[in-house]
């Protein structure tokens, strides 16, 4: 392997079912259904995807969902706002866990 994380790797994504066909195909069916925008609009679905892509720090998903948002006419301001929502909820989850730390401190300290 010469390089990690090349954009052309995305072209190979449809082939991931090659060695575990049943699981792979079920994943793609699920992925398609979950991101189809059934009750949610295409715009909301794309912004959730973009936010989660950043939370997961996945360069492929960031590429895919930035393009998806662009293709739907979503503005840069809206995209960045979605990134901040993901970022804030992630930070919130970390900070909320400090309640565990505080409980232990409460128990342990004189």
């Amino acid at each position: 392997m010469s390089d990690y994380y090349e954009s052309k790797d995305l072209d190979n994504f449809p082939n991931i079912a090659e060695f575990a066909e049943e699981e792979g195909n079920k994943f793609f069916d699920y992925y398609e259904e979950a991101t189809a925008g059934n009750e949610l609009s295409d715009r909301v679905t794309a912004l959730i995807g973009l936010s989660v892509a950043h939370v997961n720090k996945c360069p492929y998903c960031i590429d895919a969902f930035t393009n998806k948002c662009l293709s739907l006419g979503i503005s840069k301001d809206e995209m960045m706002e979605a990134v901040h929502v993901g970022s804030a909820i992630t930070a919130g989850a970390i900070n909320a866990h400090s309640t565990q730390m505080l409980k232990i401190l409460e128990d342990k300290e004189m």
Partner: protein
Amino acid sequence: MEPKKQKAVLENVPEEKDFKENLDQGLYADDIDIFQINLCKKCNLSCKHCHVQASPQNDRIMPKKYLQKCLDILKIYPIDTVDITGGSPEMHPNLEWFLNELSQMDLNIMVRSNLVILLEEDYAHFIDVYTDNQVELVASLPGYNQEKVDRLRGEGVFDSSIEVLQLLNQKGFGKEDTDFTLDLVYNPAGSYLPGSQQALEREFKEQLNSKYGIVFDNLFSLINSPVGKFLNYLVKSDNYKNYMHELINSYNEETLQNVMCRNTVSVGWDGTLYDCDFNQMLNLPINNSHNHLSQFDYEALQNRRIEIGNHCYSCTAGGGSSCQGSLEE
């Protein structure tokens, strides 16, 4: 970029399949339903993505004798739609006369307007001309927010476009209970493909109505063809290879049934006939001896072989693309 240079760039798509390899037997026209006339290359705007390379400095306009020839053809042959484009068609000195003549015939008349010219004193009367001649207006609006539209088309263009759309609504264009059709044309403001036409139309309708009280009939979502200023941008910004890869990866054979070149003849400002507007910009005339208004032969053009190249990938990607929007929806 001159047409010759554009063609040379388009012939070079390394590691990709040449468009012609998809069509061993070639591509043939079915009929002539749409007569698309490019009146002029003169325009009051200089949009970054313009495939026509129109601008205020470009003075090429169609002589009146060719407009008359178009009328003669449209009187005789069973063509349904005349699609008038430019440049800015309003800047042609004979547009009003031409529309008055066309409206005497049983035709669907489409005019492609950049909207903002209708605020200029010399051209504002065209709103009434369009009403009087029951023209279907097809208006460019590459976004529903100011930042995107102004970046692509020039400062202040978004606000002016909104003002004109409100004026057109007042005249009845775009309203359900009138016969005046108002369509919008969306195309991406960069090196990416548009989303689904249905989703974009829904979003445009919601945003324009809630913020500005604007209504319209249909949104035509177009894929930017790698031609003209857009090709120049792709090359200069180093996006050409990736954009072509995306188009070629999205190639959909089924779109070949409905591509616009199969039912359209595109007329250049100098009377030359082309299979489509993009071929016109690449200086690729119809490949037979009847490729000028002066040699127009309906039967010879009906089943002609179409001139194709790698730019054709922009009409065959995903759901397909045409001057009337997506081919799929």
